[in-house]
């Protein structure tokens, strides 16, 4: 039997503790959430360009420090179909815009439409990037463990943790089901009506397959004292240093300040 290797934290093996290394990655997850919230509010509540640009600068700097610029770029790409639509619609259809750049028959692209479009795109990118930054630099286990320490119940932790792990497995199951149904003559290529007829034989086993496991999983959880009262012991507790706490409070105060000023109409 392998003795517990001597590691910080009551003899927990290293592969369980799994302390994240690197700039921003090792920051406390709740702090990262607070910072993201500040950035989102700043991106939307501050009118005009200053707020959005400030958020962009902050997010890009942090991403560079945490070396996840490439991840941010992939998510940026995923939002690109929207960018085209936003720009086009606002360019031509911004109601009340009266400063046409040029005129092509009934269509008149306007400067204020272009401006509003660009700003909307910038806000969208800032908003997505701020949240993506948390996702790219934090393991879901760490986030849930940190929230659990701050009072999040074992049931909520289980629901989120299990759902995230269950999605890839359910996708694997869905592709196996497509195989099983095709092996019994269901044709998923071909004419529209034939494909439409395929919805129930594809959707139903994904649903039934997952539901049959509910009973077995319930018994398994109860067999492991899941419904015991009191707090659940946490094996993995992300560090929460002084710096983390200061940053967190600063973010919360900043957020309240922006919302307050905006409500009081002081931000113009």
């Amino acid at each position, binding site marked *: 039997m*392998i003795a517990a290797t001597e590691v910080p934290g*009551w003899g927990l093996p290293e592969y369980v503790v799994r302390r994240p290394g690197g700039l921003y990655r090792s920051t406390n997850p709740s702090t990262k959430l607070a910072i993201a919230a500040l950035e989102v509010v700043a991106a939307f509540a501050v009118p005009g360009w200053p707020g959005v640009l400030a958020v962009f600068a902050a997010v890009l700097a942090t991403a560079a420090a945490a070396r996840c610029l490439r991840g941010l770029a992939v998510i940026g790409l995923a939002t690109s179909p929207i960018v085209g639509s936003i720009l086009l619609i606002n360019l031509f259809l911004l109601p009340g815009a009266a400063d046409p750049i040029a005129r092509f028959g009934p269509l008149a692209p306007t400067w204020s439409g272009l401006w509003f479009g660009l700003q909307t795109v910038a806000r969208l990118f800032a908003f997505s990037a701020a949240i993506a930054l948390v996702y790219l630099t934090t393991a879901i286990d760490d986030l849930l463990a940190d929230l659990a320490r701050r009072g999040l119940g074992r049931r909520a932790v289980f629901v989120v*943790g*299990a759902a995230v792990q269950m999605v890839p*497995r359910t996708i694997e199951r869905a592709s196996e089901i497509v195989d099983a149904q095709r092996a019994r003559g269901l044709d998923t290529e071909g004419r529209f009506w034939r494909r439409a007829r395929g919805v129930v034989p594809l959707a139903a086993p994904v649903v039934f397959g997952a539901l049959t496991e509910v009973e077995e999983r319930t018994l398994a959880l109860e067999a492991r004292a899941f419904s015991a009262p009191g707090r659940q012991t946490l094996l993995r507790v992300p560090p929460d240093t002084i710096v983390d706490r200061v940053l967190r409070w600063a973010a919360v105060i900043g957020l309240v300040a922006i919302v307050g000023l905006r409500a009081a109409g002081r931000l113009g």
Partner: protein
Amino acid sequence: MAIELLAVGYRYAGASRATLRSINLRLEPGRVLGVAGANESGKTTLCLAASGFAPGVVGGHLDGTVLIDELDTRAISTHALALHCGLLFQNAATQLSNTTATVFEEVGFGPCNLGLPVDEVVERVWWALGAVGVADLAPRDPDRLSGGQGQLVALASVLALRPRYLVLDEPTSQLDPAGTALVADALARAAAETGAGILIVEHKTDVLARIADEVIVLAEGSVALAGSAAEVLSDPRLQVLGVEPPARIRLEREVRAAGIGWSSTLAEAIA
């Protein structure tokens, strides 16, 4: 000190007929009781009743009484049941909590639910992994294990609660011969090291022949045969009850039926 079923009957909610009919049974710590029987004879329901999960978790109607160490299971709260009696099922995949990244944390899931201090959780995890003989799997991802390994991790995660009894519902029925042997060895080892009383439902009577002290055979929800493993597994009525005898006994019976003189050399050959 035992799990006792006294004239136990059971009917699932919304079902018309009873699944168990007046069952009497006793499981003592350190003993291994095998349960065989055709499908739909009530084996799974017997496991749920003996562990208190029926009606505690699955509802339905229970007649008679089930006592775990003189406590009526209906009086024990759901989570406390797990401390008395560990429960293991057929499909390893559904017994993982699906929320852990390593086998170590998976086996620690139960003790953590009890809110035990971290050092006690660590001690119990190593003890349970050792009792089943899979300490080397501790760093592995629970989702990437073979069927047999998955069942062993599930067994360890239940043992970590240090129950006095273990109820196993067809633990090897979805495993190939290698996986079956792995689990059978681990069960024999766990029984010896933990002294727990084990009730094991199994189609593969070769596994029962190897690890069970007594065996009962269920038919239509009641006990049709009961006795020592050797007696019951060589009883000619097994076939009629839809249970296949161990290979050794089946071979001997066929050779004798062909009128060939039985001898000790033959007996050794098929041991």
